[in-house]
C-alpha cells in the first residue's frame, strides 16, 4: 500500500518546490501466457515497487540494463500503460487512473521522445503531418497559424522549415530524431520522457542531439526523465540519476556524487564495467567483473534482487528486501551493506 504520508501534496496545494512528477509504490506487471489455452502461468514484474520524485526543471537520469524496467517505468509514468499498483502524481494531482478528458489534457503536459528514429515516425506521413499531429489531436491552431507553428518548431530543432512536405526516409537518423523532438514540443509540454533518445544514433550525432535537448530545456523550462543505458551520456545530461535493477530502484543520487562515490554494489559494478576511451586508464583500471547473467524478472531472487551477483552479499540479503534509504544528503541506496 502506498504510504499516504510520504506522497507529496495530496493533502495540500502543490507549490513549485514540490516535485513535478512523483510516484509511490508503483508496480507494473505483465502476464506470461502459455499453452494451447493461453493461460497466464506467471508474471513479469517489470516495475516492482518504485518511489521516485522528479523536480521541476531538472533532468532525472534513469539507468539500468535490459529487463530492469526503466522503459516500462517511463511509459507507465505518462500513462501509456496502466499501473497495476501505486500512485502517480503530477503537480500534486493523482493521475494514476485518469481517463477521458482529464487524460487528454494531461497529454499536453507530458510527452515522449522515442528511441528508434526509424520506427517512431509514420513512414506514410510527411514531416508536417508528423509534427502537426499533436496539434490536430488537441485541436490547437488551424490554417496559417498551424503552418507557422510547425515551421517554428522545425526551426527550433535545427531543421529547415521548407522540408515540411518531405517524408521521414529522406532524412538521416539524427534529423529524424530532431523531427521526433519537434513533435514532442508541439503542444508546449512541461515534462518529457526521453526513452533512449540517442541509443540508435551514430556517436558523432549523439552529441548534437544531447546539446539540442539541453538547450531546449534551458529555453523552454522543460523537465526530463532521461532513460538510457549509456552511463557516460546519462552522467553528462542529468542532475540526478536513479539506478534500476529488476524492477526496483537500487540507488538515487546527484549525478556527480553517484559517479564519484557509488554506495550500492550494483552501481559500483556498473560503473566499473563502462569502458573509458583512454588506453592509459583502461589498462590500469581495476576490473570488477560481475559473474552470471541478469536474473529473470519473472522469478526474481528473494530478498535483495541483486544478491545472486553481488560480491558483498551475505545471508541477510536473501531474507529481507533492503529499503531505499537515505545515506547522505539527497543520496539514497537500497542495500544492507553499502559501499563506503
Amino acid at each position: 500500500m502506498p504510504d499516504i504520508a510520504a506522497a507529496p501534496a495530496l493533502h495540500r496545494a502543490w507549490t513549485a518546490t514540490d516535485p513535478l512528477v512523483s510516484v509511490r509504490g508503483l508496480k507494473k506487471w505483465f502476464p506470461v501466457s502459455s499453452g494451447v489455452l493461453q493461460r497466464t502461468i506467471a508474471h513479469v514484474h517489470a516495475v516492482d515497487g518504485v518511489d521516485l520524485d522528479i523536480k521541476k526543471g531538472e533532468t532525472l537520469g534513469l539507468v539500468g540494463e535490459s529487463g530492469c524496467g526503466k522503459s516500462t517505468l517511463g511509459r507507465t509514468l505518462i500513462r501509456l500503460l496502466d499501473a497495476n499498483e501505486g500512485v502517480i502524481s503530477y503537480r500534486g494531482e493523482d493521475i494514476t487512473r485518469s481517463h477521458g478528458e482529464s487524460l487528454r489534457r494531461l497529454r499536453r503536459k507530458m510527452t515522449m521522445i522515442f528511441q528508434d528514429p526509424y520506427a517512431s515516425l509514420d513512414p506514410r506521413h510527411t514531416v508536417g503531418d508528423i509534427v502537426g499531429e499533436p496539434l490536430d489531436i488537441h485541436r490547437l491552431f488551424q490554417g496559417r497559424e498551424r503552418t507557422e507553428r510547425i515551421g517554428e518548431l522545425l526551426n527550433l530543432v535545427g531543421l529547415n522549415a521548407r522540408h515540411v512536405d518531405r517524408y521521414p526516409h529522406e532524412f538521416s537518423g539524427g534529423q529524424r530524431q530532431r523531427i521526433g523532438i519537434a513533435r514532442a514540443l508541439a503542444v508546449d509540454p512541461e515534462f518529457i520522457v526521453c526513452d533512449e533518445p540517442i541509443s540508435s544514433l551514430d556517436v558523432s550525432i549523439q552529441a548534437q542531439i544531447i546539446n539540442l535537448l539541453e538547450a531546449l530545456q534551458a529555453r523552454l523550462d522543460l523537465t526530463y526523465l532521461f532513460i538510457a543505458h549509456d552511463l557516460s551520456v546519462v552522467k553528462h545530461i542529468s542532475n540526478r540519476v536513479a539506478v534500476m535493477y529488476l524492477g526496483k530502484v537500487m540507488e538515487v543520487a546527484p549525478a556527480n556524487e553517484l559517479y564519484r562515490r557509488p554506495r550500492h554494489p550494483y552501481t559500483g559494478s556498473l560503473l566499473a564495467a563502462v569502458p573509458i576511451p583512454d588506453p592509459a586508464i583502461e589498462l590500469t583500471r581495476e576490473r570488477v567483473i560481475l559473474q552470471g547473467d541478469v536474473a529473470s524478472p519473472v522469478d526474481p531472487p528473494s530478498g535483495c534482487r541483486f544478491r545472486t551477483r553481488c560480491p558483498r552479499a551475505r545471508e541477510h540479503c536473501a531474507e529481507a528486501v533492503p529499503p531505499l534509504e537515505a545515506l547522505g544528503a539527497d543520496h539514497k541506496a537500497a542495500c544492507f551493506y553499502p559501499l563506503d
Partner: protein
Amino acid sequence: MISPLPIEAPVPPSTAIVARTSRGYWREAGGRLRRNRIGIVSGGVLLFFVVVALAAPLLAALITHTDYRSIDLINTFARPLTPSHILGTDELGRDELTRLLFGAQVSMGIGFLAVVVALTIGACVGLVAGFYGGLIDGLLMRFVDMILATPAIFLFILMSILFKPNTITLSLIIASVGWGSIARLVRGEVLSVRTRDFMVAARAFGASDARLIFRHLLPNVLHVMIVFGSLYLGQVVLIEAALDFLGLGISPPTPSWGNMLTNSETYFFHSSWLVIWPGVTIFLTVLAANLFGNAVRDAFDPRLR
C-alpha cells in the same frame, strides 16, 4: 495557453543533406514498377481490357455496327475473316467481336466490383480485428474461418437461387466469399504494424482509436490490399466463368466471356473459334492480373528481389 517559441534556434542547424531524390513511398514503388518490364506489359494488357470494357458500345458502333443481340439466322457459324464479321458469328448469327466487347464489360465489371467490395469489407474487418485484438479479434476471425472453410460452391448455389444473378448481384455474391482472405492478410499486416513505435507515439500524444486505425494503420497496410486486389481480379474472372459454366452466372442473351465459353462448348469441333476467342480473353486477363499483381508486390517490397 501555448507559449510562443523562442525566435532563434538554440543550436546550430543540422546541415545534413536531405536525400538525393525527394520521392514519396508511392513514387518510389511506382518507379520500381516501371522498371519491371513484365509488370509494364501485363499492366498494359489489363489497361487495354479495361478500356475496351468501358468503351464497348462505342467500339461496337464504330467497328462492327451491330448489337450483341442481333440475331442473323442466315449467317450462323460464319468463319472468322468473313466480311463484316471479323471474328465470325455464333450459333444464332450474332457477331462474335461485338459479343466479346460487351462480354468484356460484363466480366471486367464483375471483376472490379467484386474486388472493390471484397477489399472494403475485408479491410474493415481486418483493421478492426487486428487493432483491437482479444475477443473482437477472436470472434471476427472465427467468422472469417467459417467463411473460408465453407466450400464456396455451395454458397454460390445458395445465393444464385436466392438472388437472380445480374452483373451487380453476381459481383456481390463472389465478393461475399472472397473478403475472408483479404481480412486475414490485412489483420496479419496490422499485427506487425501496430506494435511499431510510431503507433505508440501517436497514442502517447492522445490519438483516438479512429485516428490510429484510419490515419496510421490503413496507409501502412494499403500495399497489401493493392497486391491482393490485382491477384484477386484474375481469380474473380475465373470464378465468374466457372459459375457461368454451372449455369449459376450471367444468363444469355447478355454475353459474358464465361457464358460465351460455356455456350460454345458443344460447337467446339466444327466452330472452334467460338471457344477460342473467349478462352483467349479470359486467359490473357487472368495471366495479366497475376503477373501484374506479382510485379506490384515486388515494387512495394524490394527485399524480395
